[in-house]
């Protein structure tokens, strides 16, 4: 079984080498996020006004910003915060959403309909506006960016877990577990949830990219992260003032960092789905 999965993974990778590239990219991002502060050539916070707004050169490969800080160093150091926000937000909504969704899918009935209605309300709304309003209500801090991003992701996980559990709830092995005297909670947590986790992992990878974009958008409009903290969204916001005078590197490089991060997570999600989804196996 395991070797078959591995062989299948190898087959998928040969057919779609992009998945390998994406995995390498995500690995690189993780490496940068962990070791970033130790590998940068310049201090990302200390300003040096005599070196302000220099175009990319050998000394500063991504140029310098309005305070003379090295853009490349700031990009590298920012990776940790950006990834931390996205990963913890998606992690929270995954954990909460999977449990709520699984319970609803298993129990059905009035609870299921009530939660379903709540999810509809949440989804029936411009989600970015919702996140904005929540950060406003909870206070303008980074933790609240995480919470807001987690809440707007929640409906997708609830819906997903609910649907996956619902189609399994009357299968033989579930009835067997119940016949053995397992409680409902035990059936949901020990048997049903582990079965839907692989499918949800794919959803998570696809969602990470979206969460990165959302968090960066929120900090771009001035919520959450405060200067001089290096963060990709706020770097774009600070660079925006200089775009009509042609300082393109202040926008292009943070934009590229965001784009690559999202692209890697999306491609990886697609690839992992191909590996895990049995319907794709031939």
């Amino acid at each position, binding site marked *: 079984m395991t070797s078959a999965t591995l062989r299948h993974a190898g087959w998928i990778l040969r057919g779609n080498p992009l998945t390998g590239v994406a995995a390498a990219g995500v690995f690189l991002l993780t490496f940068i996020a962990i070791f970033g502060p130790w590998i940068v050539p310049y201090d990302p916070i200390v300003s040096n006004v005599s070196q302000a707004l220099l175009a990319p050169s050998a000394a500063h490969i991504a140029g310098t910003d309005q305070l003379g800080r090295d853009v490349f160093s700031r990009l590298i150091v920012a990776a940790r915060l950006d990834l931390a926000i996205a990963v913890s937000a998606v992690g929270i909504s995954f954990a909460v959403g999977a449990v709520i969704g699984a319970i609803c899918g298993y129990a059905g009935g009035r609870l299921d309909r009530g939660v379903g209605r709540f999810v*509809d309300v949440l989804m*029936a709304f411009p989600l970015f506006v919702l996140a904005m309003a929540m950060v406003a209500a909870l206070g303008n801090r980074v933790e609240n960016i995480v919470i807001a991003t987690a809440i707007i992701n929640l409906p997708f996980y609830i819906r997903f877990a609910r649907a996956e559990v619902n189609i399994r709830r009357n299968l033989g092995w579930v009835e067997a577990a119940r016949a053995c005297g397992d409680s409902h909670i035990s059936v949901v947590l020990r048997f049903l949830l582990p079965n839907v986790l692989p499918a949800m992992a794919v959803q998570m990878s696809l969602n990470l990219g979206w969460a990165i974009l959302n968090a960066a958008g929120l900090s771009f*409009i001035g919520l959450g992260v405060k200067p001089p903290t290096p963060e990709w969204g706020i770097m774009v916001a600070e660079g925006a003032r200089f775009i009509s005078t042609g300082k393109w590197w202040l926008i292009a490089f943070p934009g590229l960092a965001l784009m690559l991060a999202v692209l890697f997570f999306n491609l990886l999600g697609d690839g992992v789905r191909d590996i895990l989804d049995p319907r794709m196996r031939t």
Partner: protein
Amino acid sequence: MTAFAATMTRAGKRFLSSLPALFGVLIFTFLLMRVLPGDPAVFFASGPNAGKEEIEVIRKQMGLNKPVPEQLVLYLYDVGRGNLGRSMMTGQLVTKDLRDRLPASLELTFAALLIALVSAVPLGVLAALKPGSVIDHGVRLFCSLGVCMPTFVSGLLLIYVFYYLLGLAPDPTGRVDIFTSPPPSRTGFLLIDFLLAGDIDGWWAAFRQLILPAVTMALFVVAPLARITRASMLVSLGSDFVRTARSVGLPWWRVIVTYALRNAILPVITIAGIVFSTMLGANVLVEKVFSWPGVASYALDALLSSDYAPVQGFVLLMASVFVIVNLVVDILYGIADPRVTIS
């Protein structure tokens, strides 16, 4: 005529079923106002050093000393009468501010949706006609990159290329440049107002100002639209009725447009509705990048200066717009595919 009546009944039912959602949003905005850090009464007092008694009087006036359920009822009553409070930033009624700024946002969003549909549907159809071809791969690449690009970055890069490098676009601030006098306001949509006033130069100025933000927003939503068009065109092109249409010798464009596309358009309409809602959110970012004087940038400014009545009004407005959009999607459904109404 019965089909029309049935569509309306369906739309009416959907409207009724969306009322609970709207009510939920109302409760949400109420809670938003109540759990906010800081005491609204202090904001409305004469200044930061207003006396305790003065604040207490204002609390009474605003009804903040009443129990929360009673406050909720009062709030619902106020909203029902169209009173959303007053903005501290502009000193105006929130309803008036929103009414002044809504056309700017809608003009931008509709222009963007039009651009997105006009480019995404042909792209999707082309990709579906020759799966695996260069066009198909090109469209897929463009879509994969499109969803990864943050709107605010693509907007700024467009400004860099078309304003700074090429000089084709005007200064990216606002709806008209300072040299153009705005037309007499009839609809609030500048492109329509300039036409009504017969001012072609003004229309051109407004159009040039609109095109970059609209394209920015469109770029962001072309990907999902093109992808769904391709997928549903593939299904429809492989169906029996298309084969029949081909075999009886109908011209190719007739087969594609009248038979295949007409039957493939339903999922596209669904996605277009969802996309519209995404765009309402993206408005915040695009309006900020282009200093567009719309409702989203108004709400954002209010939010950053802790002026909560406009934020509340904005959230409510977005929810109402969203309900209306859903209704329109429902009605379009009935027109695009009469079978929907029967089942």
